[in-house]
């Protein structure tokens, strides 16, 4: 009851305040993002909208998809924060996401959002080469994708289980794409050689980090943000090498659940999340690379400035069409057969 009291008081106090600031009610967020970050953002959000009661639930992207899918008849979540492009596309195709044009939509590269704006990329994830800096310095490591095939890295490469990971699937597909999408056999050959050097496919990111840290291997392929986060905020000695020929750049996206109970609040949250200020701060603290193209370069943190975000030339449409087929082929014919 107190909350209602306060909010009515607030109402009478700031009669001229925008209706938005008076927004109240609930907001349920399903997120695949780092918990600390989520909490930080929500705190900030609540500073602006004190009457919105935000709940969040941390899950993997796949689990969010399952959940949203199951709840289709009566959605419980409002906002999906953090999902791979693939998961978002599946969800959009199953009609699980709201078609909506936020105010900042034009500032986002069409490559990084859904055609119908059912999902919008929030940040970019370059997929790079990850190393254990205890074992080698970035200079000593493989400098480009093709270097990975060097026999000297035999049994040094650890890979996060490919099929279960949207990230890894994209990396592997782009490797095939890089060798020519029309005839995947060259790509397959390439992957076969990579497989020969691969020591192990790990069950999940944690296992990958642990094994890498414990020097069961020293090289992996992983996304830049996580590497930077580990490098700067934990005791783990990870570092990265940005491949010379460029990296496949994934999108991590957000979306509003179709028929959400608190659709308006979700919209407010999305606007808030894409606020330039928020984005800059997130890139400072959480090494996020914003999708928004209209942020002044000066405002961005140093690590970002040092980075040469060179992208692999990729036709995402082709990738999306072929991925399943390629991955199945890889899974049945290549995986574990390189040796």
């Amino acid at each position, binding site marked *: 009851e107190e909350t209602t009291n306060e909010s009515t008081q607030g109402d009478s106090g700031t009669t001229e305040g925008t209706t938005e600031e008076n927004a109240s009610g609930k907001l349920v967020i399903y997120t695949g993002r780092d918990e600390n970050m989520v909490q930080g953002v929500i705190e900030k959000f609540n500073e602006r909208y004190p009457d919105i009661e935000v709940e969040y639930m941390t*899950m993997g992207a796949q689990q969010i998809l399952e959940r949203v899918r199951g709840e289709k008849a009566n959605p419980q979540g409002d906002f999906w924060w953090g999902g791979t492009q693939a998961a978002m596309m599946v969800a959009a195709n199953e009609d699980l996401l709201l078609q909506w044009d936020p105010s900042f939509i034009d500032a986002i590269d069409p490559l990084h959002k859904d055609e119908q704006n059912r999902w919008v990329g929030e940040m970019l994830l370059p997929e790079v080469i990850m190393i254990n800096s205890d074992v080698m310095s970035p200079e000593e490591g493989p400098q480009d994708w093709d270097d990975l095939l060097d026999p000297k890295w035999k049994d040094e490469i650890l890979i996060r289980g490919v099929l279960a990971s949207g990230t890894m699937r994209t990396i592997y597909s782009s490797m095939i794409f890089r060798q020519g999408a029309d005839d995947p056999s060259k790509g397959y050959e390439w992957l076969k050689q990579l497989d020969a050097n691969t020591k192990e496919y790990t069950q999940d990111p944690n296992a990958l980090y*642990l094994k890498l840290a414990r020097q069961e291997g020293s090289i992996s392929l992983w996304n830049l943000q996580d590497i930077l986060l*580990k490098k700067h905020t*934990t005791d783990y000695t990870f570092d990265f090498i940005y491949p010379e020929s460029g990296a496949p750049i994934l999108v991590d996206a957000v979306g509003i659940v179709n028929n959400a109970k608190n659709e308006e609040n979700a919209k407010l949250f999305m606007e808030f999340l894409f606020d330039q200020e928020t984005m800059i701060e997130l890139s400072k603290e959480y090494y996020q690379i914003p999708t928004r193209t209209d942020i002044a370069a000066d405002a961005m943190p140093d690590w970002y400035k040092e980075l040469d975000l060179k992208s692999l030339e990729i036709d995402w449409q082709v990738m999306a069409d072929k991925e399943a087929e390629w991955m*199945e082929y890889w899974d049945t014919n290549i995986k574990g057969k390189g040796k």
Partner: protein
Amino acid sequence: MSKKSVDTYEASWWSRLTQSRYFVYILISPLFLILFAYVIYPFYSTFIQSFAGDNQLANYQKFFSLESTANLEALWNSFYISIISVICCAVVGVMMAFLLERYDFPGRRLLSILVLVPMALPPLVGVLSFTFLYGESGIFPRLFQQMFQLEDVPFALKGIWGVIVVHTFTMYTYFYLTASAAIKGLDPSLEEAATSLGASRIRVWRKIILPMLTPSLIASSLLVFMVSMASYTAPLMFGVERTMTMQIYLSRTNGNLDMAATQSTILSFVSITFLLIMRWYQNRRNYQNLSKGISVHRSEVSSKPLKYLAVTLSFIGTLILILPILVLILISFSKDGAWTIQILPTEYTLDHYKALFTDERTWRPIWNSLQMGFIATVGNIIFGVAAAYAMVRLSFKGKTALDILITIPWALPGTVVAVNLIAAFSTESVFTFNQVLIGSFWILPLAYFIRHLPLVFRSTSASLMQLDQSVEEASRSLGASWWYTFRRIVIPLTLSGVLAGTLLAFVQSIGEFVASILIYNTSTIPLSVAIFQKLYAFKFGTACAYGVLQIILILIVLIISERLSKGSAGSAI
């Protein structure tokens, strides 16, 4: 002293009803109702969906097509991993049960609690401790490497065998619990009879004890077989990716829900076939104790050396079995990232516990899990015991159906179960008293209840099969109503079986993750999800410390139940 007699017969509609041949169907109807509401209703859609499309069998054709053998390969892998898992778990579980039940020595009671602890191994961090133990950079491989100055580690747990080791270590408790309940209830004079006829110890085991344990062995075989079929993390961890669960996962990720439904249906079909074979095997024989009177319990262990051997074996066995737990504790005290290429961690810290104990949000999930686990387990006990009784003691048509329905939620992967529940209960329905369960507190206990249906049911029916029916009759003849008999005679005499199932159900509920993550909400975060969140944030040490808390919690439960069962659940003879 006036002579009193029991309430006798009155010719009312009620007595006419209760005496009817068909009254048994009224008795069992609640069981079927519950199964209908919480198994058939949520799960039939999966089944129907598997036939979706123009060509109704298209998915099945695809599954079995020889062009892409991924599915068949997965089926085969899952199947034989499960079979081997069952065998390994049986060997370990029954052996420990035998050592700890049959020999009395100082410390036996402590060991018999410790040996149960592995079932408390938290699913997410738990499996990782195996890598820390036997993986490529694990304690043992590195230890041997250093000891013998080898270039490479001498061995590392990998592939199928890795999966089987993990399965064995985490699932032998199914066998241990039910087998020790059954050994307690076994009439000792049978063994004596066999030895008097000249049978050696081994033969007594092969011909008398093991066959007499059949109901409990079958119960646990079923449970283990099905969890192994539906196991996800272990195969993934050891790189055996071609399994049924993985295929289901992939289909769902790719948005191919029909195929996922087909795969789920086939998975449960295999499990049900296994169930039917086991049922047939079990029903061929009788396992009820028949001896006249109550046999004398053998009060002596024959030879001293044998006893010492038993003590040593059970000690070593228990130690090996709880190693993963010990490693978990070790990690929880070691500094994140500092344990790299050494055999044992070099830097220790209390930080992880500090982090836990200073965060007020730590305790909420523990309380949540306890609460929800408790509710679900109470439900499981009531349903499981009633169903077991009906199954073993009443005669009615539809027993196989009952058995299958109870089994299905256990045989399917957790994700599939959860997704079905979400779909079924995200709108109002009569089965939920016109409430939306999704998003409410009740969905989690309900999920645990449904998923763990077979646990209490199986272990209780195994115990019941052993119990000589005439003691029930004796009670009835003395005027005890069915309910009184049930309370005073049946329950005390099958207590060890009921308790075994209860423990399994409760511990499983506390640790359940796969389904929980899909249906929890912010106010009902269960312990497993809380651990996952720590892990997700890569606070590895803290996650392990959290896991240790969970283990301690379960240990307390185990100790309490040991106290409870002491004395009363002596024997079911």
